[in-house]
């Protein structure tokens, strides 16, 4: 399966995301921010980093890039898209996901291995987990606090659209300890911690993150 990995100026984690796709048995296709051709990929990953230097707001400029103008309508038509960290911020700025990511409540940049609980294994990117499964993957961000109004929060909670929550202390002040959400259809997922850094115990704290990528393979076969 061909899976696109987008590189914006300032993206950091595209190589790890591509490696994760290969570990999961897929073929990683590099997608450049200035192109608008999705090259027939069956899924897209928006990796972490600091797209366009995080100028204005995280993800705000990336939203208007040529590649996003191709990804947004494709995602609305069901193309699986996973946004990790900065990619999650891009998805919120694109209004493919509701809410926004703001400064961590304690204002510190956090970088640590974080336990999260998968609370919805029905999305395209979480189907290879079991519900309630606890995993440890790296968390590294300065603006990871998920915020939205009460109505949006109720909609997310009421329709099972939270896919993961932080376990233990809420690290960044996210509402309801939300670490990741999905759209109503389950094809677009945003997650703040980094599964692509935890696909192999040689290079990550665990291999727990790999299931995000194998989920896509399983869903779309």
């Amino acid at each position: 399966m061909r899976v696109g990995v987008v590189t914006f100026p300032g993206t950091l984690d595209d190589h790890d995301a591509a490696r994760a796709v290969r570990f999961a048995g897929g073929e990683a296709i590099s997608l450049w921010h200035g192109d608008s051709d999705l090259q027939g990929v069956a899924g897209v990953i928006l990796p972490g980093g600091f797209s366009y230097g995080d100028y204005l707001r995280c993800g705000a400029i990336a939203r208007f890039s040529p590649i996003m103008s191709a990804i947004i309508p494709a995602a609305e038509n069901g193309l699986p898209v996973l946004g990790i960290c900065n990619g999650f911020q891009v998805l919120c700025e694109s209004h493919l996901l509701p809410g926004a990511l703001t400064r961590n409540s304690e204002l510190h940049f956090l970088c640590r291995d974080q336990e999260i609980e998968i609370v919805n294994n029905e999305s395209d990117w979480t189907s290879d987990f079991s519900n309630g499964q606890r995993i440890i993957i790296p968390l590294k961000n300065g603006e990871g606090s998920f915020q939205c109004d009460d109505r949006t929060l109720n909609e997310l909670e009421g329709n099972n659209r939270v896919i993961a929550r932080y376990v233990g202390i809420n690290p960044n002040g996210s509402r309801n300890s939300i670490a990741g959400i999905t759209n109503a259809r389950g094809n677009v997922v945003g997650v703040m911690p980094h599964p692509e850094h935890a696909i192999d115990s040689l290079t990550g704290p665990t291999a727990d993150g790999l299931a995000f990528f194998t989920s896509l393979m399983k869903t779309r076969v």
Partner: protein
Amino acid sequence: MAKVIVDVVLKDEILDSQGDAISRALPRMGFTFSPTSVRQGKSFIITLDHEPSRDELGEIEKAAATLLSNPVIESFSIRVEH
């Protein structure tokens, strides 16, 4: 010449951790005016070599609502300085 100033602030219901940190720093520095809260925002100063027309102000408002602010968490106001 005119300056169109777009002020963007987080909505009241959104946690502003930077504003809170400033609020806590003020009394530590000896200021005694005891604010009930401090909200931090940003300003965009758009300079034109002419007075903006109604249409141009409409365009700037559209830019403020789409690019300069994120309506999910922020609100904005526009003023013109001559």
